[in-house]
């Protein structure tokens, strides 16, 4: 809104923003500042003496093979989750966008997993894949696959990816469907009149027009895979076996809350904050561009 303000009160606007600013200050700015402060300090194990160490904590962190492993794992995990969840959701959205009989029922049945917590998705899949009672696990063992995700790191990784993707597909489906519905029908008709096959229409017309949605979802899915999948990992594997499913957020939690390594976990917080800010910034740059040129 440009031009003169609607109201001229002096005090009222401050009272209106006060609740938001108070909560933000106490539970956001303060802890974030604490994290940054702790990240450049080091305390002895008894918390008696604390001294300034500059970037030492980060140096230690990035030369720690376990942390480097967690970074590699997080990126691999994010790539797997994002790629599969986007492809499956796009396929389902394109199919559900067709004028089918029962399309509304289909859509409803594809949306409901949005309501589930990541940890709940993990519990549902755990029940199927628990090595001695899960019916899918038993079936796998029946055909000669030694299924036991509590011992096999690769299987554990597969299972957390599966549960994470399963929960994410609905979210992506909602956005892809909205994106498809926003594409003018006349455009598709024109392409078809020109004799393009449906495959050709999809890759040359529909998919490029969906780019903004795809990009938005790419960023959201990456953030989900890095941050929100904590619940999936905690309920399914607790980061194990070994460190096979210990992502950056899970390691931050274990080091800070279970091992009381306050300074190291603070440094890990700062690394993750930087990562999330970077992702958000990239996204806003892109959206700005879209507003200008589209």
């Amino acid at each position, binding site marked *: 809104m440009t031009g003169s303000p609607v109201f001229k009160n002096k005090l009222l606007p401050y009272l209106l923003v006060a609740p*938001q600013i108070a909560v933000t200050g106490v539970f956001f700015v303060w802890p974030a500042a604490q994290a940054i402060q702790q990240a450049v300090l080091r305390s002895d194990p008894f918390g008696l003496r604390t001294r300034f160490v500059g970037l030492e904590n980060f140096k230690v962190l990035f030369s720690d093979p376990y942390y480097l492993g967690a970074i590699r794992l997080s990126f691999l995990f994010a790539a797997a989750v994002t790629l599969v969840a986007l492809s499956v959701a796009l396929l389902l959205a394109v199919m559900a966008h067709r004028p089918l009989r029962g399309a509304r029922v289909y859509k409803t049945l594809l949306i409901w997993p949005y*309501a589930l917590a990541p940890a709940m998705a993990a*519990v549902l899949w755990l*029940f199927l894949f628990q090595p001695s*009672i899960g019916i899918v696990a038993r079936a796998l063992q029946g055909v000669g696959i030694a299924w036991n995700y509590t011992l096999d790191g690769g299987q554990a990784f597969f299972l957390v990816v599966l549960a994470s993707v399963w929960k994410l597909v609905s979210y992506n489906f909602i956005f892809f469907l909205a994106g498809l519905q926003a594409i003018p029908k006349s455009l598709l008709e024109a392409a078809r009149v020109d004799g393009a096959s449906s495959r050709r229409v999809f890759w040359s017309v529909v998919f490029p027009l969906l780019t903004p949605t795809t990009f938005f979802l790419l960023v959201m899915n990456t953030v989900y895979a890095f941050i929100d999948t904590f619940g999936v990992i905690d309920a399914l594997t607790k980061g194990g076996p070994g460190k096979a499913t210990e992502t950056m957020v899970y390691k931050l939690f274990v080091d800070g809350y279970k091992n009381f390594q306050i300074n190291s976990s603070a440094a890990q*917080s700062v690394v*993750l904050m930087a990562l999330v800010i970077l992702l958000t910034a990239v996204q806003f740059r892109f959206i700005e561009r879209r507003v200008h040129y589209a």
Partner: protein
Amino acid sequence: MRELRQNGFAHLVLLVGIGILLFPLYMAFIGSTHDAATIGRGRLPLTPGSHMVENYLQAWNYGTGERVAGTPVRIMMANSLAMALAIAVGKIVVSVLAAYAVVFFRFPGRTFFFWLIFLTLMLPLEVRIIPSYKVASDLGLLDSFAGLILPLLVSATGTLLFRQVFLTVPRELLDAAKIDGAGPLRILVSVIVPLSRPSLAALFVILFVYGWNQYLWPLLITTDPKMNTIVIGIVKMLGTSEAMMDWNLVMATTVMALGVPVAVVLLLQRWLVKGLVETEK
């Protein structure tokens, strides 16, 4: 003919997709209708058993079976419901007020406040979890509803959404209300809020689900089993997830825990889709 074949293919893809989405839910339901021994032997049938009523009553009233110590579902449900409602309503109130100030007033520090709110969009609770825990503990908020709810009221999504909505309110409408003698708060309650009803409904669904599904924060902040939310309660029941435990009760609890947010999403599906797509902008 080609059209028909393609539609057949679309039906097939959608049915397979829906099948994969529904299968774990169906098996959870099946698991909640058998007794623990049947499940523990690893021979779970694909059809419902005869223990449904007793499993659900047991989970609802006691939450504890022979091999698992839990909290009654009715207590955890009440906790989750209180938390989800408080977060949804609280966030909406806080962000409506802030957006109203930012859009309709000019005051020193307005841009600064806007950016401060915007900044919170970038940093999820998880990445600053340990210092946030320390703040909550210093303020004596551990094991309290205030501790569960207050830190989760920080989010910029709502404020940004309402800012977009408020910017579309025609200026003439506000001027007319002013001429009729209405003050800023009166206009907020009688003009702005009614006009924003669709967005309020949309955000309510999103935030209710968000609140119900909180995991890491309640896990840290509450240690008293009486304070468990249902999502936390189920994962705690699982523990080391061994074969011989009361899977029937865990699954009955799971089905009840899913029921509430799924019902909210299905009933308010239209608003959810609208709200999600709008927050993207």
